[in-house]
C-alpha cells in the first residue's frame, strides 16, 4: 500500500518535471511575446509579423554585449563582470547585458517605426497593408540577426544551470523521480510576473497608460481630448521593445539561440493572442498558457508515467499522442478550433 502511494507521487513528480515546469516557463515566454503583439495590435492596429524576429534581435543584442563584456578590452578597462551580491552568483551574465539589449531593441524599433510604419499611419492605410509591411520588415530583421550572429544554434547561458537539481530533490523527498528547476526557468517566471504586474499597473493607474487605453478604444475621441498620438505610439514601442528583448533573451537562455526557431515562434504567439482574444492583455497571457500546456501535454510520451501509475502494466509503445516534430501544429489546431467555436477568443477581443 505504501509503495503504491509513493508510485503515484513519483508519477506526478515525473509530470511536474517534464510538463508542468517547462510549460510554465515556455508559457511565460510566449505570454511576453503575445503581450507585445496584442499591444501593437490595439494601439497601432496591425498584426505584427515581425515579432518572432524582433525577439531574435533582442537576444542577439544580448549576445553582442556578452562578447563585449568578455573581451580583453573590457577586462582591461573595467575588470571582470562580478555579481554585486554573493547570492546573485547563480544569475547568468546575460542578465547584466539585458538592459543594454532592451535599449538597443527600443532604438531599432523606434527607428523602424519612423522609417517604415509612420508613413502608413499618416495615409491611414488598411491594416492588412501594414501587416504586409511588417512581413517585409520581418525579413530585414531576420537578415540583420543572421548577419550579426550567423544562422547556427548557439547557447549563451552561464552561471548555475539549476536552481535545484533532480538530485537535490531526490535527497530531499526520497522519491525516485525528481523535479528540477533550471535557473532560466526560474528567471523567466520571475521576470514575467514582474513585467506583467508593471504593465497592468502602467495601463490602469498612470496617466500615460490611461491615454494609451483611450487611444486604443477610440482614436478620434482620444485625439479630441488632447492626447498626443505620437507620444502614445512612442511609449507603445518602448514597452513592446522591453517585452520583446526580454522574451527573446529568456527563450534563448532556456532553449538556446537559433534564428529560425524564433521565426517559427510566430505561430504559437499568434495562436496565444487569438485564443485569448486579440487586443486583450489578460487574454494574451491566458492564451499563452493554453498553448504551452497543450503543446507539452500532447507531445509528452506517457509510457513511464503509466508504469508508475498502473503497477504491473507496461505499455508496448511510447504512449505519445502527437510527435514532438508536430508541436507547432498543435498551436495551429488550437487556433482553428477557437476560430470555429469562438472567434472573439476567451476574453472577447476585437473582431472587426
Amino acid at each position, binding site marked *: 500500500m505504501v509503495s503504491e502511494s509513493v508510485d503515484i507521487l513519483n508519477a506526478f513528480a515525473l509530470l511536474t518535471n517534464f510538463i508542468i515546469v517547462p510549460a510554465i516557463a515556455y508559457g511565460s515566454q510566449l505570454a511576453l511575446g503575445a503581450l507585445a503583439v496584442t499591444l501593437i495590435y490595439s494601439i497601432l492596429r496591425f498584426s505584427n509579423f515581425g515579432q518572432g524576429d524582433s525577439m531574435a534581435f533582442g537576444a542577439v543584442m544580448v549576445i553582442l554585449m556578452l562578447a563585449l563584456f568578455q573581451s580583453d578590452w573590457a577586462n582591461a578597462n573595467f575588470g571582470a563582470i562580478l555579481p554585486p551580491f554573493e547570492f546573485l552568483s547563480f544569475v547568468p551574465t546575460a542578465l547584466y547585458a539585458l538592459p543594454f539589449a532592451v535599449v538597443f531593441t527600443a532604438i531599432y524599433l523606434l527607428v523602424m517605426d519612423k522609417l517604415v510604419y509612420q508613413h502608413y499611419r499618416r495615409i491611414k492605410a488598411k491594416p492588412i497593408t501594414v*501587416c504586409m509591411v511588417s512581413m517585409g520588415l520581418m525579413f530585414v530583421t531576420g537578415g540583420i540577426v*543572421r548577419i550579426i550572429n550567423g544562422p547556427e544554434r548557439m547557447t549563451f547561458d552561464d552561471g548555475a544551470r539549476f536552481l535545484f537539481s533532480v538530485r537535490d530533490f531526490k535527497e530531499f523527498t526520497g522519491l525516485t523521480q525528481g523535479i528540477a528547476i533550471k535557473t532560466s526557468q526560474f528567471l523567466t517566471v520571475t521576470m514575467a510576473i514582474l513585467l506583467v504586474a508593471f504593465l497592468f499597473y502602467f495601463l490602469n493607474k498612470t496617466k500615460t497608460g490611461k491615454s494609451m487605453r483611450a487611444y486604443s478604444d477610440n482614436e478620434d475621441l482620444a485625439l479630441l481630448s488632447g492626447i498626443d498620438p505620437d507620444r502614445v505610439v512612442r511609449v507603445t514601442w518602448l514597452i513592446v521593445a522591453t517585452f520583446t528583448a526580454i522574451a527573446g533573451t529568456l527563450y534563448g537562455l532556456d532553449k538556446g539561440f537559433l534564428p529560425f526557431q524564433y521565426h517559427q515562434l510566430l505561430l504559437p504567439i499568434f495562436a496565444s493572442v487569438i485564443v485569448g482574444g486579440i487586443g486583450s492583455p489578460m487574454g494574451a497571457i491566458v492564451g499563452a498558457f493554453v498553448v504551452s500546456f497543450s503543446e507539452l501535454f500532447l507531445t509528452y510520451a506517457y509510457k513511464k508515467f503509466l508504469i508508475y501509475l498502473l503497477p504491473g502494466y507496461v505499455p508496448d509503445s511510447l504512449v505519445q499522442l502527437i510527435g514532438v516534430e508536430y508541436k507547432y501544429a498543435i498551436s495551429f489546431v488550437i487556433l482553428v478550433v477557437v476560430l470555429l467555436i469562438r472567434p472573439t477568443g476567451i476574453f472577447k477581443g476585437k473582431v472587426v
Partner: protein
Amino acid sequence: MNMVSEVWQSHRTQVTFAIMATILLFVGFNQSWPLALGIFNLCVISSIMALGVNIQWGYAGLFNVGIMGFAALGGLSVVLISQQPVTEAVEAGGFNMLIALILGVITVVVGVVLHNKKFNKWIVFAAIFLGFFAMRYFFADGANAIEKVNPAGTGYLGGLGLPVLLSWLVGGLAAAAAAWSIGKITLGLRSDYLAIATLGISEIIIYVIKNEDWLSRGVKNVTGLQRPVPYELQLQQAPWFQDLALTVGFGVREFSTIFVKLCYAGFFVTILVGLIIMANLALDSPWGRKVRAIRDNEVSAAAMGKNITRQHLQIFVIGSAIVGLAGAMLVTYNGLLNPTSYQPLRFTFLIWVMVIVGGSGNNLGSVVGAFIIWFLWIQAGPMGLWVAEVISNIAGEQSAVTLFIEDRVHHLRLVFMGGIMLMVMRFSPGGILPEKNKEL
C-alpha cells in the same frame, strides 16, 4: 530626356519586356545558353506563382503568407501521382493505411455533421478524439511497415504511376482544397486571420512532407521523377538530333541540354500565357467588375447584394490553385522533391516581393516582377562574392573582417530583398507596371 520619359509613360509594358529580353540575350551570348534558359524557365514558374498571389492580393486584398505550403502541396502531388508504386510497401502497410484513411475521413465527417446538428461541443470533441485514436492505431502500424521496406531505396508508398502532366493538375486541385478549408474557416472574420492561418497551414504542410517518410520519403528526398520531355542521353544518341545540332551549329551535348530546357520552356510559357489571357478576360468580364467593386468598396458592394465572403473564398481558392500548379511544375523541372528546400524566404517572401515590385493588380506586372527579382536573386550570389573579394583586397585575405564578411555576406540578400519591398511599397505602391484604372 523628355522623349525618353514620354515613351516610358506610354509604352511601359513594351519597354520593360524589351529590356528583359535584352538582359536574357546578353546572358545567353556572354555566359551560356543553358544558363540563360535555366533563368528563363525559373522566371516563368515564379511568374505563375506570382500571378496566383497577384490574383489574391491585387483582385481581393487577401494576404496569403503560406505560398510555400501551397507550392509544396503541388510538389507532393507530383510524387504521389507520377512515381511508380512500390508494390512491396503497398502490400506491407497499404491495408492499414487505407483503414486509417477511411477512419480519418469518417471522423471528420462525423465531427462536421455533429457540429452542424448543434450537438453539445463536448460530444463533438469526444467523437473526434475517439476517431483520432482509432485512426492512429492503424496508422502507426502501417507507417512502420512501409518505412521498413528497403529504407535506403524506397521506404515509401510510391505514387500511382500516372503521367506527370496529370500531376500538375492534381497539384493545383490539392492546393485549392487546402485553400478552401482555410478560407472557409477564416474568411468573413478579421482580415489578418487569413494571413495567420495560411502561415500555420504552410508550416504544417512542410512538417508533414519532412516527417512522414511513408508518404514522401521525408528528408531523404524523392529523386528521378518522371519528365514530360525526353532525356538528354536519349537525344544525344538519336541520329536526327545529331543532324539537327550540326545544322544549328552547337555541340551535341550542349544542344541536348538546350533542347530539353526549350521543351520545358514550351510547356511553361504555354501555361503562363494561357493563364494570363484567362485572367485578363476574367477581369474585363462582369465577374471582374464585381471583384473590383468589392475590393474598392466592400460596404457598397455588400449593399448591392454581393456576397463578399463567398467571392473572397472563390478568389483565394483560384489563386492558391495556381500557386499549387506552379509548385508542381517546379518539382517536375528540378526532377526531385526536396522538403528542406522549402524555405519561407525562397517561396513566400520572394514571391511577395515579385508581386509588389511588378505591380499588384496587374497580371503582366507579376511577370515583370518575377523576372527582375529572380534575376537579382540569382545574381546576388556572384555580387556577394564580388563584395567579399573587394573587401579581402582592402583588408587582407586572412583578416578577421574578411572571414566574417565571407561567412555572412549571403544573409545580406534578406535585408536587400526586404529593403526593395519596403521601398517600393513606400514610394511607388503601384510597382513597375501599375494597375490601369478601368471604367467600371
